[in-house]
């Protein structure tokens, strides 16, 4: 029957399966975006960069001069690291968009400059100041210095605020989403630029762990075991996240925080902390997708930039903020894209956007979105 359209059924099943694999990445990434947007109303344009950070975290855990950590621990550690960084970003920069007092961002900028200058000075006149970076056996160059200074400044500012040395008020105004979008977009470009500077653009090798090497002949196609694992891992994580948000008490708090943060804090729930953790969780999902992607694609500073636009289209098609929508649409569009690669490969990179345009015309809230 399928032969009517010029493609034998075997090939078609193979392509469907491949679509499902790509769909797993779309689903994982758009899930993180949907969680962040649905619950926090932040359009997180840094998601692609955070996905890339996940892959690089896995790479650096494996290839560092101190202690080499393999794929399986990295699967846990890298999302934790990336999620932690995300939380620092949310606390010190993104949430500050809704705060009138600019003390905290100013402290961040001041400590960033101070740390960077200290690093640069120690680099120029090694001997006078103890060379912090060469202590850990790592050659310092500007990109690394920027990175270290940024992370140091984030930690320092958070430390000040955690110990109540810095008395900054919580959210006291509502800024347009657009500012969050611009801020995270800017952050993404800076992070990617630093990584291109440091690691080049052609990517770094990361091999498939020995346990998942090889493949299985399914009769209609050769399925690498690693790809099968990606589908399973992604499905498990997606369903677990959906269950947590829709079926547990924590999830109920989260949803309540979106609906009415003031009332929820009146019940004694620390809403800003909840928001920070949720952002961290969404970012950790991106980090996890990055680790899963590392052995398939080369670990490449631009890997996120290439993907993020597609993932945003997925979120828009699924309905901004709809968790289920993000998951289902992610897998579905993976399949659609896979099929396009068979019938008309030239259109493979645009088909998702065509669908997005059609959905926006017919059902502007997205396939699974509630109409406001």
């Amino acid at each position, binding site marked *: 029957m399928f032969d009517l359209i010029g493609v034998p059924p075997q090939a078609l099943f*193979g392509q469907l399966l*491949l679509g499902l694999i790509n769909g797993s990445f779309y689903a994982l990434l758009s899930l993180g975006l949907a969680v962040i947007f649905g619950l926090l109303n932040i359009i997180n344009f840094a998601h692609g960069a955070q996905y890339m950070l996940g892959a690089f975290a896995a790479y650096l855990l494996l290839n560092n001069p101190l202690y080499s950590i393999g794929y399986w621990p990295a699967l846990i550690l890298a999302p934790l690291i990336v999620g932690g960084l995300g939380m620092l970003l949310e606390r010190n920069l993104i949430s500050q968009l809704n705060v009138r007092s600019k003390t905290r961002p100013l402290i961040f900028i001041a400590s960033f400059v101070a740390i960077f200058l200290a690093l640069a000075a120690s680099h120029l006149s090694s001997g006078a100041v103890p060379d912090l970076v060469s202590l850990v056996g790592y050659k310092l160059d500007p990109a690394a210095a920027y990175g270290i200074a940024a992370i140091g400044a984030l930690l320092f500012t958070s430390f000040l605020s955690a110990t109540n040395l810095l008395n900054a008020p919580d959210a006291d105004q509502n800024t347009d989403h657009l500012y969050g979008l611009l801020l995270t977009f800017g952050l993404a470009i800076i992070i990617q630029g630093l990584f291109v500077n440091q690691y080049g*653009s052609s990517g770094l090798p990361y091999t*498939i762990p020995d346990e998942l090497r090889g493949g299985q002949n399914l009769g209609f196609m050769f399925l*690498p075991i690693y790809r099968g694992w990606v589908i399973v891992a992604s499905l498990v994580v997606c369903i677990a996240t959906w269950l947590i948000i829709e079926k547990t008490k924590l999830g109920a708090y989260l949803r309540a925080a979106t609906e009415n943060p003031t009332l929820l804090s009146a019940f004694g729930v620390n809403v800003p902390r909840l928001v920070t953790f949720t952002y961290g969780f969404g970012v950790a999902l991106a980090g996890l997708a990055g680790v899963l992607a590392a052995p398939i694609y080369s670990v490449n500073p*631009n890997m996120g930039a290439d*993907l993020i636009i597609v993932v945003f289209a997925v979120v828009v098609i699924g309905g901004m903020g709809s968790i289920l929508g993000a998951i289902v649409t992610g897998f579905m569009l993976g399949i659609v894209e896979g099929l396009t690669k068979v019938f008309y*490969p030239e259109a493979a990179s645009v088909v998702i956007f065509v669908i997005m345009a059609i959905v926006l015309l017919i059902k502007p809230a997205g396939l699974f979105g509630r109409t406001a």
Partner: protein
Amino acid sequence: MKIRTVFIAGAALLAAATGAAAQTPVKIGVLNDRSSLYADLGGEGSVVAAKLAVEDFKAAEKGLKVDVIAADHQNKSDIAVNTAREWFDQQGVDLIVDTPNSGVALAVSEIVKEKNKVFINSGAASSDLTGAKCTPNTIHWTYDTWQLANGTGSAIVKQGGDKWFFITADYAFGHALERDTAKVVKDAGGTVVGSVKAPLNTQDFSSFLLQAQSSGAKIVGLANAGGDTINSIKQAAEFGIVQGGQNLAGLLIFLTDIHSLGLKTAQGLIFTASFYWDLNDDTRAFADRFQKQTGRKPTMVQAGVYSGVLHYLKAVEALKSAKDGAAVVTQMKATPTDDPLFGKGEVRADGRKIHDSYLFEVKKPEEAKGPWDYYKLLATTPAAKAFRPLSEGGCPLVASAAK
């Protein structure tokens, strides 16, 4: 005493005046991809290569005041054309070098002709640059699709790889490479059973690889470059293409691709290139200097930038002016080329620079003696046979020269 002082001052003034008069200003613009998939094969490394050429030419001693500037074209023709226009109109740029991405290169070639400047292309591949689209202002320096197709294609068909399937980058370069290779394969008695056009900068090639797998071809020809080639080779290994009895032919492979893939994945790959850093003492010496500044060994594109700039400066020195682009190119065509990296060669009437071409095989991990020791030389094609014969390119310049 007083007279002596005046005399010295006058002599100094005279020397300064003649010095100033002899200083011919030359501005070189390195226009390439500095941030995306082709940034490692050219990028900042090409700027370093251009500056090394200026240094080695001892430009200042020969009365040339050379400036090197750079910009990122982001693989977009409109950005490249606008940058070129601004460089020519406002910055006084005389020469544009490098410019990978054949689509962008063809667009830049047009504007260079319009402004009568010089374009030395090292990074792009399309043989159209010296074929139907040749101009009196463009020189195609390092390699081209015809050379790659001929070198790799005929070698593989000779080994029995006569049924081909192409995975092609969907723009000018990929199309030209597929066309040129398919012709070589067919001329050698082989067949092409199919091809698929993948969008530029594709992350996932599994779908295309699956189509290649079910096509029954013996050889899967990768008519793509940079990040696309890396991803397709990596994923071909994952999908067991080679275990399944098919072989990969990387039609355009750069040193940085192999570095990124690692020898374990890339071993055994056969391909054609114009340059390798470990060919002889001269190339090794250059590679060491290059590596000190960039941390990497040079690719053939970066080596081509060095060699091209060197030859350009010789022509400008002879003419004592860089202003008339077509005149500089004519001078470059009239003098044979000779430099430490590509040896002796020449620039033909159609703008094609010719030199020896090499067939390499990627070493096995246990054969490599250290980092960047990746290639094993299989065969050398002499310059005269490595590139498309002058008469077959269809370049209008050749026809008018013959008349």
